[in-house]
């Protein structure tokens, strides 16, 4: 092979400037405007990220160590007490506060308040473990809510580890039998392995405190429904520390999981959330346009689930769903799950933000089509107005 000539030819081709499409330029302009108008702010470095913060960090670490010594002394003396000590007072309050501090809080419309209102403190019975301690890290689950479609539970971590404390988020890791490589943790529901919407992790709330709200879809279970008597088990064998937008260290294997610091240990939680679907509103329907069929809408206190059939002829169009309420407000799509059908079509279970609306319009766009000059949206494939209960 004449490597030099191939390199030269590849350079010529790949390094040529290509035309940036209008949609990209427009989005860049929007971003620049947000920056210039002060809608987006450059974050200040936290004290511990500055050199001057070293002594402060040392003081905090020493104080945290004292606290843990005192706490662990109490717990060692009376392990039964550990279960009764509230690790964090108000996890939902912290989650809400963290969300509001983000510059794009409007992008995350998770119905925290509704989840909080419906969540119940977990049973503190002998068979259940809601707090686990190891390696100076305390992990606990305090509240949970299951509407039959999704399961939510709070997760909090408390640590005195000064290095771990520099993390923006901590991922839970688990090891499979005889495998030394850590994976992102999973849950077991009545013994079945199941993964939440996101990795099981907690974000920094304050020095030494990390909190998270985990969400598991029933669709991730084989039966696609939560069992009536549900026991959830979380068995973590490690904690991986991460920073936002970090550059992975090539010297640390599996950095994406393990992060810049990993603490191995054993934290096992076992809890039993109860299912309460009494506030769900389910509407079976058949609203069709251009082969697209809206089949079902389930409105839960936390989100809106729409089941849609898409014909096989749309597969190459990369169809995008947009749901608006009767007033024309578009609902943010949280996620979707896809079920290929034998006829080449597809059933999509799309999850949108919570809404109190009962009139909707679903629009399906051809995301792969060339945008007409001056057009704001790609070509429309289908438009389906429908109502739920």
């Amino acid at each position, binding site marked *: *092979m004449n490597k030099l000539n191939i390199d030269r030819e*590849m350079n010529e081709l790949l390094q040529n400037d290509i035309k940036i499409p209008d949609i990209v330029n*427009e989005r*860049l302009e929007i971003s620049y405007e947000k920056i210039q108008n002060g809608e987006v702010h450059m*974050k200040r470095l936290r004290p511990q990220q500055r050199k001057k913060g070293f002594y402060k960090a040392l003081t905090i670490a020493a104080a945290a160590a004292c606290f843990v010594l005192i706490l662990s002394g109490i717990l060692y003396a009376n392990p039964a007490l550990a279960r009764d000590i509230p690790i964090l007072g108000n996890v939902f309050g912290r989650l809400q506060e963290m969300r509001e501090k983000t510059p794009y809080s409007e992008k995350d419309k998770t119905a925290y308040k509704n989840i909080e209102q419906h969540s119940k403190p977990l049973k503190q019975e002998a068979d259940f473990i809601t707090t686990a301690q190891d390696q100076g890290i305390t992990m606990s689950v305090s509240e949970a809510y299951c509407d039959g479609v999704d399961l939510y539970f709070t997760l909090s971590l408390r640590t005195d580890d000064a290095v771990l404390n520099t993390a923006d988020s901590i991922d839970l890791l688990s090891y499979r039998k005889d495998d030394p490589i850590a994976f992102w943790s999973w849950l077991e529901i009545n013994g079945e392995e199941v993964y939440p919407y996101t990795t099981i992790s907690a974000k920094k709330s304050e020095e030494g405190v990390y909190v998270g709200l985990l969400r598991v879809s029933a669709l991730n279970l084989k039966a696609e429904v939560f069992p009536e008597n549900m026991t959830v088990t979380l068995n973590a064998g490690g904690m991986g520390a991460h920073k936002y937008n970090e550059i992975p260290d*090539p010297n640390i294997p599996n950095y994406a999981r393990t992060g810049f610091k990993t603490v191995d240990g054993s934290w096992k939680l076992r809890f039993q959330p109860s299912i309460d679907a009494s506030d769900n509103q389910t509407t079976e329907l058949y609203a069709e346009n251009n082969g697209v069929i809206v089949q079902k809408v389930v409105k839960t206190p936390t989100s809106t689930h729409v089941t849609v059939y898409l014909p096989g002829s749309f597969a190459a169009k990369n169809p995008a769903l947009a749901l608006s309420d009767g007033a024309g407000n578009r609902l943010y799509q949280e*996620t979707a799950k896809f079920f290929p059908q034998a006829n080449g079509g597809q059933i999509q279970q799309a999850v949108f933000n919570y809404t109190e609306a009962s009139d909707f319009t679903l629009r399906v766009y051809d995301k792969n089509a060339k945008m007409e000059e001056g057009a704001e949206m790609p070509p429309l494939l289908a438009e389906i107005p429908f109502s739920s209960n």
Partner: protein
Amino acid sequence: MDNLVKKAQSGDKEAFISLIEAHKQALYKIAVSMLKNDADAADAIQDTVLSSYENLRGLREPKYFKTWLSRILINYCNRILTERKNMVSIDECPELESSKADSSEKDFLDLLKQLEEQYRIVLLLFYVEGFSIKEIGTILEMNENTVKTRLSRGRSNFKKLYLKEHPDSKYKMEVQE
């Protein structure tokens, strides 16, 4: 460029915008080669620009700005790919052929379309961005040997594809199988 990064870190918004403009071509090439459609590429680029602005002060070494920015973009692209992975096979996506008129763009996109996924981003980072093998390893979280292997196989694949489409290549006679 390092001075521009420092100015931007000190709060100079115009300096930051100049930095993004200077890297716009690279951002678009990476995003479109990973996502294969302009709408998703625009989403990923916008998120990257806003997120990088917010976190710019966390970048300790200005010389790593390009690596850092690329890594953020690739993270956003991967997130979009994860969200849509079950939707449609990118091999079925006709956009790259149908909607591009400019010939240099078409050549670029045609080439990318035909390259296997695992080689595409490595070749792009190496040839377009000029990243070293070590830097690519860092950005893609791969060890250097994997990067080298993918680069070598990608280059070989490119050669076959390019000569198939350009039988009149001026290098044809010099290339040996």
